Structure formats: C-alpha cells, structure tokens
C-alpha cells in the first residue's frame, strides 16, 4: 500500500499536532482510502469501552460514606426504587422515588422539625466513577464556604440509582430549603467521569428542570473542585437572596462568575 494514500501526509503532521491543541475533537485522523487507519480505530474503541464500563459500574456506597464521614455531618445511605442498573436505565420514573424503607430512614433522621437551609444529595446516576472520585472533595470544599456563612446543614445523603428529581423528595422529607444534587453525568468518549451538580430552591412536586441551576463537567480536567465549590456557593447565595432558582437565576450567576474569576 502506498503511504501517500494517507492523510495527514508527513508534511502536515506538525500542522495537525498544532491544531489538536485547539480542540479535543478527533481531527486530522490518518486514513486508508476513505476509512480510518487501524490506530485511530482502536483508540475510539478503547474510549467507548471505558465509557460503557463507567455506565455499568456500581457505586461503592460504604466507601463513599466513609469518604464523607470526616465532614462532621451524619451520612445516610438510601436507595431509589430502581433496584438495579438495568431498571435504572429503562425506568426513569423509578429513579425519581425512594424505596419505602429509605423514606422511613429519612423520616427518623435529622431534625426535620426545625428544618435545614441546605442538603447535599449524592447519586451515582450514569457514572458511579464520577461521584466516587469527585463528590467528597466538592462537598468538602463547598461546606467550608457554607459553614462560614452559618447555613444550617442537613445530614449528607447518598442515594443509589437516583435521578436528579430524587433530590426533591429528600429535601422535602428533611424540610431543607435548598438541595444540591451531585450526580454522575452521561459519560462522553473523552470524559467518562464527569459529575453534574443540580441546585434547586424550595423543591416540590411541580419542580421542573427549568427550576434548577446546573454546574456540569465537574472533574479535574473540566471544572475543578475549588472552582466548582465557588460556583455552587455563589449560586446558593443568589438563590437565598432572590428566593428563586432556575432559568431566572442563570444569567445573574454567570455574570457573577465572570466578575469573580
């Protein structure tokens, strides 16, 4: 086979190396005829295999609870009604509700009579690896800020196989005004361990996605732990000040970020 059938030709190799610094997109891939060369073909398969493995991996909840223990708040481990990963993927409705046993545990936990300003809920979502690695450091960094501002903090809650909206049920049971839901995002090929944070003020039954604020792509190579904590704290402060979350708040918090960083 003639090598000049392939691009990039040697003369362009440096050019593509330079262009690849501008984007993580798979540009300038060597080809044979119209098709991909073997090396980029297998690189893609490896990335897909890693993303698939990330979707299938189960959360080690006791280990996560252990990582959260030093933060000086009680830690509760609950389960959604989606009993396994397969059910979780196919039945979004079950991922939004707690098992009866989990509801009982919540009812007897904490001090719901007085209520709380803020509850953190952590769920594996579509990437257990993301929250296994990133949840504890982000909760820790955010708590440092919130404690300085005297927020009343609810127990930390882990929910296995939860969807974003299950945070609403947890917040309602604990009478928490604000909920921060940390959840593993749908793994992309280049980032199988990305964590999302969904913030909701006074969540309730009619809460829709438009009522939430989101900070996504939390991971060391994306939005790092310190930056994520500062964004979350900014948004929580704005939520408390304006008494609202979601679309209305978004622009304000973006400006805050631009001004603050």
């Amino acid at each position, binding site marked *: 086979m003639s090598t*000049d*059938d392939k*691009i990039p*030709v040697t*003369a*362009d190799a440096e*050019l593509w190396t*330079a*262009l*690849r*610094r*501008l*984007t*993580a*997109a*798979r*540009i*300038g*891939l060597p*080809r044979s*005829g*119209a*098709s*991909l060369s073997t090396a*980029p073909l297998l690189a*893609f*398969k490896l*990335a*897909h295999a890693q*993303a*698939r493995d*990330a*979707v299938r991996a189960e959360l080690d909840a006791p280990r996560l609870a252990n990582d959260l223990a030093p933060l000086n708040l009680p830690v509760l481990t609950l389960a959604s009604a989606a009993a396994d990963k397969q059910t979780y*993927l*196919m*039945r*979004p*409705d079950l991922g939004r509700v707690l098992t009866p046993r989990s509801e009982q545990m919540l009812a007897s936990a904490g001090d719901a009579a007085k209520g709380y300003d803020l509850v953190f809920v952590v769920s594996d979502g*579509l990437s257990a690896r993301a929250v296994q690695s990133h949840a504890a450091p982000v909760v820790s960094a955010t708590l440092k800020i919130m404690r300085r501002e005297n927020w009343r903090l609810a127990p930390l809650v882990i929910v296995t196989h939860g969807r974003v909206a299950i945070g609403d049920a947890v917040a309602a049971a604990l009478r928490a005004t604000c909920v921060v839901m940390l959840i593993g*995002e*749908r*793994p*992309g*090929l*280049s*980032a*199988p361990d990305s964590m999302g944070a969904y913030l909701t003020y006074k969540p309730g039954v009619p809460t829709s996605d438009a009522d939430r604020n989101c900070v996504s*792509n939390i991971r060391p190579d994306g939005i790092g732990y310190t930056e994520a904590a500062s964004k979350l704290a900014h948004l929580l402060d704005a939520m408390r000040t304006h008494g609202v979350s979601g679309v209305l708040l978004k622009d304000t918090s973006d400006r805050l970020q631009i001004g603050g960083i």
Partner: protein
Amino acid sequence: MYAATVGARRYVFRDLKVLLARATPARSGDALAGLIAESGEERVAAQFALADLPLTTFLNEAVVPYEDDEVTRLIIDSHDKAAFAAVSHLTVGGLRDFLLSDHATSSVLTTLAPGLTPEMAAAVAKISRLQDLMIMAAKCTVVTRFRDTIGLPGRLAVRLQPNHPTDDARGIAASILDGLLLGAGDAVIGINPATDSPDRAHALLSMLDEIRARLDIPTQTCVLAHVTTTLDLIGKGAPVDLTFQSIAGTQSANKSFGIDLTLLKEAHDATLSLQRGTIGDNVMYFETGQGSALSADAHHGVDQQTLEARAYAVARAFRPLLVNSVVGFIGPEYLYDGKQITRAGLEDHFCGKLLGLPMGVDVCYTNHAEADQDDADALLALLTGSGVNFVMGVPGADDIMLGYQSTSFHDALAMRDLLHRKPAPEFESWLARQGLLDKENRIRPRAMPAQFSALLPAGGA
C-alpha cells in the same frame, strides 16, 4: 373500536391511537408509556386490524383531539383532498402494496405527498419490514436548494458538525477545515452552541459566514440556537442563512420547546426576507426524534413513532431545506438498543420522505444505549441505500460537546465510495477546484491546500 381475531381469541382496540400503539414494533419508550402490545400475538393482531383499516378513517378520527391541538388542526386543515383521491379507496395494507408497486414512481409519489397525513404514513411503517421502508423511501425524491442542490438521486450530502464544548472559535475552525478536506459540509456547516447566549451565537454566525465567503463554498451555515434567539439575531443584522428549531408532534410538546406554529411562521418569514439563498429559498432546518413528546409528558397516549411522523406535518408547513431525525440521541429509555434505533431511523426516513420532506438522519447513539459503531455502520449503510438526503459528519464520530457518537467524515466518505453517491453537484465542483479529488473523482485530500492554510486560526500553525 377496532378488532382482529387470531384463532379463538378476539383482540379489541379501543380507538385509533390504541390500535396504532399496539401495532408498533417493540421499543422501550412505548413500554415506558404503557402503550405497547402485551404479547407478540397481540402486536400482530393489531397489525392485521391496521392493515384492513380504510385510509379515510384517518381523516375522521384524530389521535390527538382537533380542538386541543394545533398540530392536529394543521394536519386536517392542510390536507389535500385532490391529491388523496388517487388512494382514497385503499386500506393501510393496500397503500403499502401500492407504494411498493411499479406504479408508484418518483413523480407519482411527489404528487401524492400532500394527500397523505402523518398518521397514514406511520401506519404503513408499522406493517412494513425494514426492506420495505428502504424501497419505498428510495422512490421518493425530495430536492431542496439554498446555495446548492440537496436530495438529487445518486447524491449524499453531509452536515459538517464542528461542535466545541466552550464554543472556542479556533477549535471550531480546526474541525471545519478537517471536515471540508474530507468533503463534508454540502448539507450545511452547522454548530450546536454550548450555551444559548445570543452574543456567542452572533459571533459564531459571523465566523461561519466569513469562512464560507473567503473559501467561496457553495453551501449554507447555521448556528442551532433556539428560534427566538435566531429571530433576535436576524433583527440585529447577523448573517443568518437558515433558521433552526427542534420540533415535535403535539402542541404541548412544542410548547415545552418554547415554540408554536405562529412563532415558526414569524421565523420563516423573517429568514426568507433576508434573501441570502442564491439558487433557492428553502431556509428552515428542523430536528426531530422519537420520544421527545413522552419526554416532555406531552404524548396524549399516542405511540412515539406516530408522534414523530406528526412532527413532519409541522416541518412541511415551512418548506425546509433540511429535516434531521436525531434518532439515537434520546437514550435507551426510548430506543433501547441498536435494533430499535435501526428500525426507528428507517421509519423516520420513510415517513418523512413519503410526506415530501428533505430527510436526513443523525445516525447516533449514547454510551448508555446498547449500541456501538457496528450498529451505526449498519444503519448508515441502510439509509444510504434508501437515498437519505444527508447525514452528519462529526470529527472521528465523537461529538465532544453533546457527548454522543454520530457518524464521522470518514463514515460518510466510505458510504459515498461503497454505494456510489456523490456530493451535491455545486459542492462537488468546488471540491474539484480545491484540488481535493483524485483522478477517479474520489475525495482524497493530500496536503492542506494553500487557500485553506490561509484560514488557519492564529496560534494553530
């Protein structure tokens, strides 16, 4: 009420929407909605009953009430009775037989299109095999124009999709150059912006227009922002070739997208008024996908494939340049695996084409679906064989902004070679002028042409 008897058992279907849902080949979204047939036998019984249904039934019984839904009103009020007359005596099964017959030529089907409703097309799809869907779709020719001609027989166009997670202009430009070298971009060069910031969309539109103008590319560009954002940008003088919007098959699902027919008409008129097309005035780009109505809790008990076909009624009211079913994007709770995605992609392409739309398909899957590149390869080849107007071209099939896998520049190129499809004619001539074709007229770029290098982003080279 509709019924069919299999052996000693009589299956009864309460109304048309239940019959359509029970007759639908299995998919997870309809199971999630509780609409799916309870057994394989019930499904085929429903298909027998559906096949015997006179087409006139669809004009008398709406799956979503006329009074409640402007999409139903659009379908009924715009129905072309003269065009329908050619098949008005037929049943659903009879229509399938007619469409497969040698009488149903390309020109006959073009004339018939306004006489068919989305529900009729969906019903035929439900009793058809994949091969039927391919053969019937391949006979439909839908040609649209803006700066080039899309949809001619023997042609396959590609949307160049150079997305970047932070909308970085230089990163996007690098992906565009890569795509152009590999012959992508004749359908549109279209960016999904990472945010809905109007300023960002304006900047991206200006950048796309500059690249297109400097290389004199016979194509159109688009930033896939919300229609309200694009309308505002038209008012501010931004270079808008095409107005984009995601659409669905019920009024309530469209409301969840923040749109209605009045808004789409306003956008269509505003975009037409710019008169930027050189050889045609198809100025709208719509995207759809099975499951979007259920996802918005706006499905009215109708199965997702029928609702998808109803979205095409919305599209055809605005003479679009491109309609794209993003078939595997929504996830496994709606289309579980490669088998369900494959069938849905061919159903959507067939229904859209039969209704007279310039259909493309984003052959794609997410990492939580049971699918991989082999499934994407199969569907892409089946669609190319079916005469799909355009497919996606994403660098290395990996969209780093939307986090899903689509088809690559290489995939489209491989299909053009394997199944002998050419780019849009004006674009093909442009590729030749850039020196990107070999002696056999295949797209085989060698070194970066000098005129491309001149566009390289600062700091890139």
